[in-house]
């Protein structure tokens, strides 16, 4: 047992912190305009690629910190901007991890290296119109025609969809799950219009339609023998969401704490009032509990009994609900100041719901945890 980060890990955190705060000094990190959002994203990737951040959890070497440190590092990026964080993560920790885990050497050279060096952007299209992958089969399908494969299907929400250089599209081929890598500009790929959302202002999201997009055999990852690949992708997405929650709690808590110590009413800082000070105490309790929970879940051994999956669902439910509470309380403490757009608490509060919906939703997570308990 060990509850400390190593010196090497702490150094990495400092580097990431410096990069993110440097970027925040230069430009707004929650860019609403899609063109600015894309340029910000590429700039951030370029800078972060100078550290081992993009490689965490993907490339393995003794110079690259492990998964707990990955979670610690994710927290820092997410605390600076939930939108930028999610866009980066869908490219690296989801798209990149898919290629690194399931791709062959040629595929890695083509798609993984540019993503890990921050030169290219990835996206993953999983969810389909009115279908949740946990309940329903996927309708996106790849049909072999001579040496080519034609992909057709509709994907509902794809983060980085409109700007990604490579998209991993989940579907089935010959009744087996597979991932099709489509590249930007491919014929038959129709971008939906950018979706307006309650939070995550700077994330570029759209639906995607694939109409007989033609790809080669070496653009297929899989075909997989069973649906467990989809579970794995969800677990990785859930890990990304855990990092997002920690960052939101960090920024909300810190802004509320600073305000409570400096803002005075009745001649004293508002932290001196138990209604405020005790809320901060509860916020920090949820935040620290979430941190330890997320660290433990992410570095739990992937044993045969798949208990680590259940632990991830547990952490996801806890951290996503905690993030909403903590950002809500922060907003309450910041009051008028917090209600004004651009405040970290206001921003986190609007983003928090996404984390409960996306990945394995809170409801489905609880059902899965319950199923595991009863051995279903």
């Amino acid at each position: 047992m060990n509850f400390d980060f190593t010196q090497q890990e702490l150094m990495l955190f400092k580097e990431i912190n410096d990069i993110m705060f440097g970027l925040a000094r230069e430009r707004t990190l929650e860019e609403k305009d899609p063109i600015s959002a894309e340029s910000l994203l590429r700039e951030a990737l370029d800078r972060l690629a100078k550290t081992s951040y993009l490689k965490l959890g993907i490339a393995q070497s003794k110079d690259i910190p492990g998964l707990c440190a990955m979670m610690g590092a994710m927290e820092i990026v997410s605390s600076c901007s939930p939108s930028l964080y999610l866009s980066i993560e869908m490219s690296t920790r989801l798209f990149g991890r898919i290629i690194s885990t399931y791709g062959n050497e040629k595929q890695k050279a083509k798609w993984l290296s540019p993503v890990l060096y921050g030169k290219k952007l990835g996206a993953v299209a999983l969810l389909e119109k009115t279908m949740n992958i946990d309940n329903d089969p996927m309708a996106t399908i790849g049909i072999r025609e001579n040496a080519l494969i034609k992909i057709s299907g509709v994907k509902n929400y794809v983060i980085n969809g409109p700007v990604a250089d490579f998209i991993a599209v989940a579907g089935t081929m010959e009744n087996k799950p597979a991932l099709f890598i489509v590249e930007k500009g491919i014929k038959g790929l129709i971008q939906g219009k950018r979706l307006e959302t309650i939070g995550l202002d700077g994330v570029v999201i759209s639906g995607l339609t694939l109409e007989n997009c033609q790809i080669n055999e070496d653009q297929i990852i899989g075909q997989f023998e069973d649906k467990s690949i989809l579970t794995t992708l969800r677990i990785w997405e859930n890990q990304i969401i855990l990092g997002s929650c920690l960052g939101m709690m960090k920024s909300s808590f810190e802004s509320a704490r600073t305000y409570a110590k400096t803002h005075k009413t009745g001649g004293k800082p508002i932290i001196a009032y138990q209604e405020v000070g005790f809320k901060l105490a509860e916020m920090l309790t949820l935040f620290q509990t979430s941190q330890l929970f997320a660290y433990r879940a992410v570095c739990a051994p992937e044993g045969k009994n798949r208990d680590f999956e259940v632990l991830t669902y547990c952490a996801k439910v806890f951290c996503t609900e905690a993030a909403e509470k903590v950002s809500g309380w922060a907003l309450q403490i910041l009051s008028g100041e917090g209600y004004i757009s651009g405040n970290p608490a206001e921003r986190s509060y609007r983003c928090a719901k996404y984390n409960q919906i996306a990945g394995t939703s809170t409801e489905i997570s609880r059902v899965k945890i319950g199923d595991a308990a009863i051995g279903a």
Partner: protein
Amino acid sequence: MDFDFTKEQLMFKQEVVRFAKKEIVPRVQEHDLKGEFDFESFRKLGEFGILGLHFPEELGGGGADVITTVLAGEALGEAGVDGGLTLAYGAHTFLCADTIFRHGTEAQKQKYIPKLASGEWIGCMGLTEPNAGSDVASMTTSAEKKGDKYVLNGNKMFITNGPIADVAVVYAKTQPELQHAGISSFIVNKGTKGFSAGPPLIKMGVRTSHTSELIFQDCEIPAENLLGKEGDGFLMAMQTVEWDRSALLAPFVGSATYLLKKCTQYAKGRVQFGRPIAQFQAIKHKLADIRIFGEAARSLVYRIAWCKDQGRPLNHLEAAIAKLYVGDWSMAPTFDAVLIHGGYGYCHEYDVERIFRDSRLAPIGGGTSDIQKMIISKLI
């Protein structure tokens, strides 16, 4: 970071679970119903080595590290040992014996630790008073030095093991004008003239632990029964917090595992609307929440234990966070557990009803949740 236990630690935990299930759990419900302390179980805890697990072997202990000691507490909860017995063990080993071990002279250690570690003697700790609970420093029990004796006067309240203890570690003021800094700690033996315990209080939960008032009326004790130096008492009481926030919280973590198992068994067997209730999502939701609590609490508790094993001074912020989380959140799983059992859950036959009552102490004992919030809000 690394959240894994060693193989030896896990094997020991399983041994404790097996021991407790066989030797202790079968008598729990009966003693709870009668509100009686289970002397036999306590003696067995001593025989097995749990009461003195972390003390050095020369003093009759097991020489275990803190994590292993905390794991034993979790194991007792996981086996289904009631909150009364784990509280009695906690007050005895950590609040009483450990204070003597840490601050006592060699002679005091030799005299008390072996007998406390074996369970031959039962210990208690008296800090709280009828009018000084959260505000400990306002205690009024006094200890006046007269020659080679101290004379104690005052009352202590809610003292776990009070009516059955052979040895009490008692906090009293030697210099009342100094508030915290005027508090000292003493060892008082059963049978000392002027020292008595009130009858056991009738409580909603933790009913197998006996709780009472301690009364000191011109109670003379030898000056050598002072622990450490005069004025060190408050710091000593604060140091017990390390155990309070790890070993005393661990049974709640174990209890969540126990509840999950019990509820799962029940839900799989109970059929309504033609199918086991375990198949309803509403039941799975509750099972999930029970598991989530246990998993969330675990790392908070072991973080305190690990830091203590590293010889680090207690991080008061982390300690208060652990206590606040376990205190406030450990009740919901017991509420859910009763609900899963329906009407049977409300009856004593199924022990979830007892666990529900026992858990209510978590946000009160050892410093209420409000006090934890006060500490946290001051430290941030």
